[in-house]
């Protein structure tokens, strides 16, 4: 028995030794592990008892036993309790699911056993069957990351979690719990950002997260409005985006709540008493801002607006303004007030100072003007800022008499003139004008005769009945009365021709004048400028110059370019103004509006004299500096002359050949030349010369030629006779031509050239007339030998078919092909002008070449009975052969040469002249005729 006990002890010792060798036996298991969750902070505090200082901690999601933490930490024991504690911050809300914790002690590689699991239950335990989402209503800064979890209601399925309407990727934490993680969250809208958990059918639950910024307020400034209390203001920083009332920024000033600011309506905080140091604390769930300010009350006076501003006395030139203060303490405050006056076309600010200022007199106002006045004041000593501005107050000043007029009298002749005055401006009229009163008196009469004029009149004519000067006085009138009259005495009229008028050149559209001082100019000078040559109601301008001045510039607004002005300087003294100096000039020269006038051109031999006149002055638009003369040549102008003297108005162009010319004359000013005036001339020979050259010279030349020809012919008369009038040999006649001739029956050669002459006796109605188509004519001609050397017509042309009354031939069916000329030529006489070779013509007749009448087809429309027999006879000869019939009738056709040149009757077909005539030698007239006609 003891042996068994010893064995057991030994065995147990062995086991202990082996444990100690594994390191387990030396470390005690931590105990008394407790878990303390902080749900809003998502932290879990662990406390335990242990002698070790190094621990392994494991945290699980209980249901799925997913390890969410496995960490070795060194933890010291608390000095009092000896407990060890460690806090873990969960990435997901602790309510999402149950968490289990175990812990073991560690000493290098030695570890104790794990402590028993400690679990904090989540909201997904079966006892809580509803839907939940965590965290709820959390406030986080913009850009933060968060994990949301949804616990699905029992018996419901999970579908999705939506963040701000967007479905997020969810992970499963337990049977009913799902989580999403959102990173870099943007700022929320008014009611926060919604995170919604949905089942396939319903919206189950959700949470709201408020994402925003900490307060960004700045610039705290405190001031007093009533010299007792304080009003602190600051600038609101950026929008915190936290609109839920419990999340809004909360403000306290020196520890007191700022109620109005906490409502989010203003950024003001008031304090009933002034404290020299101020601290504003702005706090929201995401942060706190502290703003401070420090100042004495007197340095921060911001006055309220003056009340009840009224004008107690308003005159033409001043007004008295009163107001009251809403704070009685202001009455003892040294203050400065600023009145802002806004009138028509004028505004000004005026400062007034005084203690408790509440009344000021506004001076230097203008009569009859509406003013709007506002008042604001500030503390004079240690001025902080202008106080609030009063409501605008309107005043209207009274009218006053107008200012004196600026009057001038312009004489346009020795006894007529016109008094002018300048209109009064609003500043000068002091009230709407109702008219003018013009009075004039002469030195002799010493009596004023007033005339009332309407307010739109600005001049009045003056007539000097006698040579004495008159004085004119003009006064403006408004409801407040008449202005001081302005008097002017007629100056002596001086025409330009009576003076040496200088040329005045404008400078940049102005006239710069200067003159020698005059000792009599006790009242200064008057510069007057009027368009030159103007009469009657002219735009007279004038300006009065102090006596100390000796120069004046006429401004361009009263001058017009291209207009010549007469500028005069008058000396003003006690009496009438006297002329000191006069100019004429252009403020700006332009090219002439009209060219020269009356341009004429005259020819003198080979010279041309151009002459012209200058255009009217109003068209010159500048001083004429000269003229240019151009010769128009096609599309270009050739400069002929440039006349730089404007007084020269003619020019002689010398040595022009006979032709037509166009001359253009242009005037030019300093601005350039005008378009010019054109004149044309055609250069002609003068009468005597023309007679000589045109008639006598050719006549003389012709006479000389005739004489030379006559002499030459006389000298060479023998040669001329041979050449033009040679001896003609006698004819050589074979056979016996001495027997008296019998009746000669000569028939014309079958092929002779014939001229067919119209015969008036021909009856056009006879059917023998056959118009020959043009084509057939040509065809016929092609088959006839032509004497190409002859100028005479070589062919016998048939325009009709003359056979005699008894011969009837067929018509050419195509009558349309015959020309009207052919038809018209039927009444002809035939004259033989040449005879063709019989042999050749014979062939033609026998051949099948030309047979215009061969057509047997008669016109079916024509009756044929009368012509039938002849037609049949002709048809035996295969058609019509007019020349062949000659051959039948006269076999001695080869002897027909003796009948050449004899006229032949067409109807008789015989030579009309007797044979004896053939024997006679040709007369010289005949030869000469042939020579002249070109025949050999």
């Amino acid at each position: 028995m003891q042996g068994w006990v010893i064995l057991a002890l030994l065995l147990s010792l062995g086991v202990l030794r082996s444990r100690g060798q594994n390191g387990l036996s030396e470390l005690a298991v931590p105990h008394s592990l407790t878990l303390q969750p902080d749900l809003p902070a998502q932290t879990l505090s662990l406390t335990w008892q242990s002698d070790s200082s190094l621990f392994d901690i494991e945290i699980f999601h209980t249901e799925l036993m997913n390890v969410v933490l496995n960490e070795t930490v060194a933890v010291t024991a608390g000095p009092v309790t000896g407990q060890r504690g460690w806090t873990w911050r969960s990435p997901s809300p602790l309510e999402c699911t149950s968490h289990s914790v175990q812990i073991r002690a560690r000493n290098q590689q030695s570890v104790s056993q794990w402590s028993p699991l400690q679990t904090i239950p989540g909201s997904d335990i079966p006892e809580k069957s509803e839907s939940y989402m965590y965290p709820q209503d959390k406030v986080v800064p913009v850009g933060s990351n968060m994990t949301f979890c949804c616990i699905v209601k029992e018996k419901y399925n999970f579908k999705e979690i939506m963040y701000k309407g967007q479905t997020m990727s969810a992970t499963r934490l337990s049977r009913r719990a799902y989580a999403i993680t959102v990173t870099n969250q943007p700022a929320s809208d008014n009611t926060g950002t919604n995170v919604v958990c949905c089942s396939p059918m319903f919206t189950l639950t959700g949470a709201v997260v408020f994402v925003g910024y900490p307060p960004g307020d700045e610039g705290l400034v405190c001031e007093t409005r009533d010299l007792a209390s304080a009003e602190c203001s600051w600038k609101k920083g950026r929008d915190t985006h936290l609109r839920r009332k419990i999340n809004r920024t909360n403000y306290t000033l020196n520890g007191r709540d700022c109620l109005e600011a906490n409502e989010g309506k203003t950024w003001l905080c008031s304090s009933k008493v002034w404290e020299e140091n101020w601290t504003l604390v702005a706090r929201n769930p995401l942060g706190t801002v502290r703003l401070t300010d420090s100042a004495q009350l007197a340095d921060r006076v911001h006055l309220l607006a003056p009340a009840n501003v009224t004008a107690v006395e308003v005159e033409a030139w001043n007004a008295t303004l009163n107001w009251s203060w809403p704070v009685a303490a202001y009455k003892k405050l040294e203050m400065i007030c600023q009145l802002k006056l806004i009138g028509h076309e004028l505004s000004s600010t005026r400062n007034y100072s005084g203690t408790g200022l509440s009344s000021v007199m506004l001076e230097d106002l203008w009569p009859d003007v509406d003013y709007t006045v506002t008042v604001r004041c500030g503390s004079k000593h240690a001025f902080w800022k202008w106080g609030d501005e009063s409501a605008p107050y309107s005043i209207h000043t009274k009218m006053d008499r107008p200012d004196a007029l600026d009057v001038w009298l312009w004489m346009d002749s020795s006894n007529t003139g016109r008094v002018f005055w300048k209109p009064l401006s609003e500043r000068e009229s002091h009230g709407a004008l109702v008219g003018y009163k013009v009075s004039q008196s002469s030195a002799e009469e010493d009596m004023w005769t007033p005339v009332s004029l309407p307010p739109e009149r600005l001049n009045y004519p003056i007539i000097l009945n006698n040579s004495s000067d008159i004085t004119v006085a003009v006064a403006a009138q408004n409801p407040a009365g008449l202005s001081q009259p302005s008097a002017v005495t007629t100056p002596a009229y001086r025409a330009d021709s009576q003076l040496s008028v200088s040329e005045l050149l404008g400078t940049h559209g102005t006239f710069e004048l200067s003159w020698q001082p005059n000792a009599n100019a006790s009242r200064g000078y008057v510069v007057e400028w009027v368009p030159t040559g103007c009469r009657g109601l002219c735009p007279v301008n004038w300006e009065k110059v102090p006596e100390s001045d000796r120069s004046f510039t006429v401004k361009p607004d009263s001058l017009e370019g291209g207009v010549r002005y007469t500028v005069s300087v008058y000396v003003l003294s006690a009496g009438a103004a006297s002329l000191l100096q006069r100019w004429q000039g252009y403020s700006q020269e332009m090219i002439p509006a009209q060219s020269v006038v009356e341009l004429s051109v005259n020819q003198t031999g080979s010279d041309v004299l151009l002459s012209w006149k200058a255009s009217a002055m109003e068209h010159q638009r500048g001083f004429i500096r000269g003229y240019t003369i151009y010769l128009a040549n096609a599309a270009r102008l050739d400069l002929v002359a440039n006349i730089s003297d404007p007084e020269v108005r003619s020019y002689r162009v010398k040595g022009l050949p006979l032709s037509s010319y166009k001359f253009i004359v242009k005037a030019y000013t300093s601005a350039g030349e005008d378009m010019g005036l054109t004149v044309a001339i055609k250069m002609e020979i003068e009468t005597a010369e023309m007679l000589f050259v045109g008639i006598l010279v050719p006549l003389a030349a012709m006479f000389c030629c005739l004489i030379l020809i006559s002499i030459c012919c006389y000298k060479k008369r023998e040669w001329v006779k041979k050449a033009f009038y040679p001896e003609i040999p006698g004819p050589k006649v074979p056979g016996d031509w001495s027997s008296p001739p019998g009746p000669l029956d000569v028939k014309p050669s079958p092929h002779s050239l014939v001229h067919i002459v119209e015969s008036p006796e021909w009856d056009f109605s006879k059917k023998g007339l056959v118009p020959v188509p043009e084509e057939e004519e040509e065809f016929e001609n092609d088959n006839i030998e032509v004497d190409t050397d002859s100028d005479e017509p070589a062919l016998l042309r048939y325009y009709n078919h003359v056979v005699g009354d008894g011969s009837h031939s067929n018509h050419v069916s195509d009558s349309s092909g015959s020309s009207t000329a052919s038809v018209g030529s039927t009444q002809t006489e035939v004259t033989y002008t040449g005879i063709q070779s019989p042999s050749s013509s014979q062939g033609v007749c026998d051949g099948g070449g030309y047979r215009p009448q061969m057509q047997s087809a008669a016109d079916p429309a024509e009756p044929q009975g009368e012509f039938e027999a002849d037609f049949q006879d002709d048809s035996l000869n295969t058609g019509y052969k007019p020349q062949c019939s000659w051959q039948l009738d006269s076999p001695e056709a080869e002897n027909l040469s003796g009948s050449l040149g004899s006229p032949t009757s067409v109807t008789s077909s015989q030579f009309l002249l007797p044979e004896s005539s053939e024997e006679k030698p040709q007369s010289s007239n005949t030869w000469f005729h042939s020579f002249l006609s070109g025949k050999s």
Partner: protein
Amino acid sequence: MTGRGANGRRGLRGHAGKTSALARLLHKECIELLEAYRNSESLPSSPVAGDYLVSIPPLVPQLSDAEKISILRAALKECLRLLEDVITREDADFSDEDSEYRRKRKTVRDRLGHLLASTEQLVDGHKFEAEVKEELDGQAAGGSFGLKKWIVRVLQELVHWTGQTSDTLHSLPAEMEKTPKTMSRRTRKGGAGKIRK
């Protein structure tokens, strides 16, 4: 009531027509209000889980038109109370900045008041009361989202009951013309019948 003549019945029918049109308009506006709220809050269009908040006795065919209208009017009355409660809590929690949802919300509240006043003439003296099974106080744990979810449920309730009322009023004139006596008899027999409080 029994003394109401033909002119009175014609007037009643005319009034019922106007009330029907008013209910139809209100129903449309309630739908728009719910839509506007969902849009402003980026909420899903699926309904919020849960039963109807307002409970009424079943509208069985045996009930007269006046009784039906009276019962529906009781439900609408509770809806108005819920809506006003929601408005108060919503304005207390969040800033009262102007928005389309808030303008529509005011319109629906005002028009619902008009509809209740208008239907009062059609109930013929019947008085029923509806029951609200849940209150917002019980949803306080839900935080801000609990309030939003409650708002959706109230708006869903409004859509439902205004739709029911509109349908009932729409069929009312013809039936009233057919069965004026029934209506009169039930009116006499009726009286205040409290279903549940």
